[in-house]
């Protein structure tokens, strides 16, 4: 409580140097790839392991004090919080298709449910959010709508990251049409395309006085 108060006070006077940036979104939209890309660009180190098997990230992964430099020479320090993917269902049978044993699949499913709960809990602790969506898929999912509604209710600034623009089916325009009230940046976290635009957007929309 006291910590929150001091952060609020620091924010008001523009002294807050470090921003806790939560990377949220559906499962397998490329959250860890994005966290890795940001961290690699500015620290040379990765944040977490990437896998095609859903729910690879099952605990919050952190990379602290990532300093990014904007075009106007302003510096921002971020604590990157790569969140487990949000989901309304987790079926252990899904993991069997990827060659996991029944026991491994059940363990993964149990850990994944705990990961979702942890990610929701962390909404109270983030200063800003990158809401990641797969630009090649339908963005009108209940997870995306519920997430954005929660951020709005909590007054947490957000940028929608339309990821995977390297894919043929990617349609950033559709995401912009579905969520016209939010800033949307199309990137490929995998190739690094448009990451410069994302950094400028972070400076513009997520940082007080940015």
């Amino acid at each position, binding site marked *: 409580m006291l910590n929150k108060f001091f952060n609020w006070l620091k924010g008001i006077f523009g002294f807050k140097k470090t921003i806790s940036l939560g990377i949220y979104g559906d499962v397998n939209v490329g959250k860890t790839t994005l966290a890795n890309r940001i961290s690699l660009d500015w620290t040379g180190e990765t944040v977490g392991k990437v896998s095609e098997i859903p729910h690879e990230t099952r605990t919050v992964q952190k990379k602290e004090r990532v300093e990014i430099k904007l075009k106007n020479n302003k510096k921002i320090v971020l604590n990157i919080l790569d969140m487990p993917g949000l989901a*309304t*269902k987790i079926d252990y049978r899904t993991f069997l298709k990827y060659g996991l044993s029944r026991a491994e699949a059940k363990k993964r499913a149990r850990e994944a449910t705990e990961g979702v709960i942890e990610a*929701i809990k962390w909404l109270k602790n983030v200063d800003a959010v990158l809401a990641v969506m797969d630009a090649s898929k*339908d963005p009108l999912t209940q997870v995306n709508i*519920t997430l*954005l509604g929660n951020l709005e209710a909590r007054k947490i600034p957000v940028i929608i990251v339309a990821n995977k623009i390297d894919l043929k089916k990617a349609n950033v325009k559709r995401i912009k049409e579905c969520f016209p009230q939010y800033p949307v940046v199309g990137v490929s976290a995998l190739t690094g395309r448009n990451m410069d635009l994302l950094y400028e957007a972070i400076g513009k929309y997520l940082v007080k006085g940015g």
Partner: protein
Amino acid sequence: MIKKKLKLKFDFVSSEVLEKKDLKSRINFILSKVKDGSILVTDGTMSPEEEMDLIRETMRRVDDGFPGIEVCSLRKEPKGLRGFLEKISDQSLKIQKIFTGKEPEKRKLKDGITLIGPAKLIKKIKRSPDSFSVLAGI
């Protein structure tokens, strides 16, 4: 060979039934229906925070036989005086929460429609900003 009849059960529940319950009982009511295999439809929507609580509680109850839920809500944004009054009501609930440190016991549902069903039965939900279609099967 005897063909087994496959059935889907829909429960249409008035928003008033849910509004009479506090948040915990509301979520319990929804999840017990859904865990029993019903697809629940109601003429209202929960707030985004309540929906997040529903997701969190669902995750706590996931097991081998219950992989979770599919949910789709369409909110009708109130306009004019009604919208203004709703904003005031939302703000007063937030103020109440600041002073008491607790979520208000009972909350009115917003105008709209919500469908919640077992993920095992609902194969796909396709939505547009003002409608949705559901593909369900056993």
